[in-house]
């Protein structure tokens, strides 16, 4: 849940990258980490298995500067994508302010995408979120690979609500910041607590 300090003029928001295993969630924030200057980001935490798959979460704090006088800090998390880490995903989604769903565009991954998306929706509902209101951005990742589903089919199958979506190739860095900027914008516009 966002934490706004009106006296210090600071905002802390939580964004979670969600999606099926090996879909590119960690690659997304690794790219963000690589491309941000040292003053704009903190220490990246990765808790992963021996073969470098996310075990618990990745975490990257971004201190982006100011918007309308408020210092803005985004906490980026990724969840482990493998099916049996469901308990961990539930924990990491607690207090989320915005979600990026990283879909794997490969044809054979469509079922995994659907299962993961269904899990996300169930977990968000369980935590009391309104699916119509929570800031959500879809990322169609791995567009650089040869055997990928057409974007129109991804949109039709995975994005019935027509939330903002971006094509991406996280490993090449394409679409990563476009996705992050959009979810950040949606999160900021969704922050409650108007100035009196």
């Amino acid at each position, binding site marked *: 849940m966002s934490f706004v300090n009106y006296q*210090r003029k600071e905002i802390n928001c939580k964004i979670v990258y969600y999606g099926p295993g090996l879909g590119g969630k960690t690659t997304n924030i690794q790219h963000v980490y690589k491309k941000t*200057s040292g003053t704009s980001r903190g220490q990246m935490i990765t808790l992963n298995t021996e073969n470098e798959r996310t075990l618990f979460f990745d975490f990257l*704090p971004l201190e*982006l500067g100011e918007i309308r006088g408020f210092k803005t800090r985004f906490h980026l998390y990724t969840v482990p994508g493998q099916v049996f880490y469901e308990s961990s995903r539930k924990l990491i989604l607690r207090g989320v302010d915005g979600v990026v769903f990283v879909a794997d565009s490969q044809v054979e991954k469509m079922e995994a995408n659907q299962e993961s998306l269904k899990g996300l929706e169930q977990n968000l509902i369980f935590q009391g979120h309104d699916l119509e209101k929570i800031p959500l951005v879809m990322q169609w990742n791995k567009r650089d690979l040869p055997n990928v589903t057409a974007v129109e089919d991804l949109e039709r199958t995975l994005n019935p609500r027509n939330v903002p979506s971006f094509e991406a190739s996280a490993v090449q860095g394409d679409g990563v910041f476009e996705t*992050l900027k959009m979810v950040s914008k949606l999160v900021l*516009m969704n*922050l*409650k607590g*108007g100035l009196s």
Partner: protein
Amino acid sequence: MAENLQDAIADIVKSLTIPTRIEKHHVLISNRDGVCLYSNKANELNISMSALLGGVWQASQALIELNQFKSHNEVKLGFDDGENGFCMVRIDIAKRPCYACIVFEKEMAPGAIRTQLKLWCDKIADELKLWQPPAHRNGYLFKDVTDEEIDRLFGFGSKECLS
């Protein structure tokens, strides 16, 4: 009156003397969402440490709950080699679950500093037991955030700034 827990805790800590024995180590308090509420050391790692605190405690709690473990004692969490490591306790500040952690080095009695940490945090919690945030502010904090404002925020991510 402080408007948020960070400032409320900061105000209280000014008036409460932090025990010398724990002050020499790194003391951190974070909320359940991993936001740093207090640290006795200005440290660029505070943000990441706070995020880990929330995750570590909640994962441990989930693990215990799977085994339907019931305890009437206060739970403590620790990771140390006898003189270096950290320990953490949960404290409820203004009815909100928070985590207090002390990271210690060359400490001969980790159990003792954990107890001191808990006692000190209990005093903070006691001072803040009636604290409430100000009445809910209505509406949205920002209206119509523009793409230009977002681009300025992410100035480091623009093509011009890419390394």
